[in-house]
């Protein structure tokens, strides 16, 4: 910002440069009080809205009886029991086995927690595998859909083509379809192709599912890169592909990053397809979180622990993406905010 030296000021001008214009209707004490009240109400509402999330995070660190205590327990000693139940399979041990376990000194934290409840760990739970499935399927499908989307978004942004609007409409309309509607024929198709309950099947599906949204979002970002940059490069003897790689891609980096994160969140959170198209091999974590059952009854601490694993990335990404959230949730249609 250019600052004006004091000596250059004409007489009668304000002593300091005026950076903020003052609205006539905002002068005086009343609007300021109203603003303060607004701020306080907003903060209170934000706190109320966060109660469920905080409660869930707290439950994840409660012991089993504390999680289902009535009235609900607010103060407690944190324990990792929920995580241990989530990640391991256990069974009730006989007294002799327990005695033998107690003699050992090489117990892991999960073993010790199980021991305290009279159980021994017999292996890692399905949830571990499902979490790994989630990571693989989310990772690969996000990479594929963003790669394909960058290419077609560039083409849609830069080249004239007949029926472009219709094609864009077709692409977006794919996103509007309810998962259940698409799943019935895909279920049959996958069954005859042998893709049912496979990683490849889920990756293909999520790629297609995210592609429509990613194309729209990225087209918005690429539209904002001035064409002059590429055209100058073309004049300098770059080929179209070189110009795309060396000029457009670096310029679109922010947009590509934001799109990647949105696509990843959608795949990571997806439930309906996973519920209907996977059973054992390729099942991801979301359909199994409501079904985490311990030995004898629902283990709320374990469910909360699993939910926390899903919550933390989403919270971090919300903060990382806050400038692009508006674009992301409106398919790139609305940019300001």
């Amino acid at each position, binding site marked *: 910002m250019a600052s004006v030296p004091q000596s250059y000021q004409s007489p009668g001008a304000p002593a300091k440069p005026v950076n903020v*214009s003052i609205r006539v*209707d905002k002068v005086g004490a009343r609007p300021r009080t109203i603003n303060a009240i*607004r*701020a306080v*109400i*907003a903060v209170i*509402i934000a706190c109320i809205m966060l109660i*469920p*999330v905080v*409660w*869930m995070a707290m439950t994840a660190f409660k012991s089993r009886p504390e999680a*289902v*205590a*009535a*009235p*609900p327990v607010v103060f407690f000693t944190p324990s990792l029991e929920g995580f241990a139940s989530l990640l391991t399979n256990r069974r009730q041990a006989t007294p002799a086995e327990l005695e033998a376990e107690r003699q050992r000194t090489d117990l892991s934290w999960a073993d010790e927690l199980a021991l305290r409840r009279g159980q021994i760990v017999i292996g890692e739970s399905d949830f571990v595998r499902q979490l790994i499935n989630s990571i693989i399927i989310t990772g690969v499908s996000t990479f594929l859909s963003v790669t394909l989307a960058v290419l077609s978004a560039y083409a*849609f942004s830069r*080249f004239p083509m007949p029926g472009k*609007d219709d094609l864009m409409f077709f*692409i977006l*309309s*794919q996103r*509007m*379809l*309810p*998962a*259940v*509607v698409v799943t*019935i*024929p895909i279920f*049959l*198709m996958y*069954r005859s192709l042998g893709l049912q309950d496979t990683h490849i099947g889920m990756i293909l599906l999520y790629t*297609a599912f995210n592609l*429509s949204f990613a194309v729209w979002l990225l087209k918005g970002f690429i539209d904002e890169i001035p064409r*002059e940059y590429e055209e100058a490069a073309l*004049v300098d003897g770059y*080929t179209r*592909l070189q110009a795309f790689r060396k000029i457009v891609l670096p310029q679109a980096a922010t947009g590509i990053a934001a799109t990647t994160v949105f696509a990843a*969140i959608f795949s*990571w*959170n997806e*439930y309906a397809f996973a*519920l*209907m198209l996977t059973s054992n091999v390729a099942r991801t974590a979301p359909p199994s979180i*409501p079904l985490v059952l311990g030995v004898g009854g629902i283990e*709320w601490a374990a*469910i909360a622990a*699993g*939910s926390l694993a899903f*919550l933390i990335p*989403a919270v971090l990404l*919300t903060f990382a993406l806050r400038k692009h*959230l*508006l674009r992301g*949730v*409106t398919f790139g*249609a609305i940019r*300001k*905010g």
Partner: protein
Amino acid sequence: MSQAATERLTAPPATTARKSGRRHLSDRQILMLFILPTVTLLILMNLFPLIYSLYLSFTDFSVISSTAPVWVGLDNYVQLVNDPDIWHNFATTGRFALLSVGLETVIGFGLALLLRNKFRGSGIVTTLILIPMMLSPIVVATFWKLIFNPSYGIFNYLIGFTNPNTAPEWLGEGNLAMWAIVIVDAWMWSPFVMLLCLAGLSAIPDYLYEAASIDRASAWFQFRRITLPQVMPLLLIAILFRTIEAFKQFDLVMGLTGGGPGNATETVSVQLYQLAFQGQFNTGLSSALAYIVLVVIIAISNLLIRALNRAREG
């Protein structure tokens, strides 16, 4: 707009001189190369299955039986239209959409009005409010189930019912269960409406309010004649988005009630899932229902996409 004008003036024709002799792809080839993979994948994964299920919707077929589909014409559709349960499902979905979108509009718009003027920490408060929107719906539904639990959930305690024996059983009674789902949906998605309204509010030029206050217009008049009409386009987009999502609602219902108690919260998507993937695996009938849902959704989507296109141009 002067920038756009200079752009048009200085932009050379699309095909500029390139070094001759170097092997390169023409723009047309690049266009094809860039777009074909996307279009192919979408046709394979979306369009083809849809055509296939259109055929199935005219047949009597079950994926778990070994018999081939038998053509039955419009029988499936006739059966669905005459089934009061299906009408009930549509009514439930409509009621859910109306209640949740209504609540989200009011809360979202209200929050946006609260947060439109910056104060210290307003950025963080806004982002915190946006968190629920980014969470996995099924995970949200699962932990709200704990919160709604009549004996050890905190919801009843927070709203003042401290005795578990007299407290309402949110997920156990038909009408309350519907409201429970509406509350969770509003908790998750009011921030979405807020986000769009904030964008609309920030675009209102200050001079409109200045002029109004010089004319001594009342706050209510300013709200009705300036704020509301200026935010309306974005608010409409938010409402359309939420309406479509509400008609598709599946995750929250499955996680919270599974359609129960009885079929009090059975939305069309849940009914469709049960018809297609549980019990009889009635593929033919469920394909027909899927098509009915599809037509409804496409009708609403059409409105939405038109509104979006207008927003992009404006």
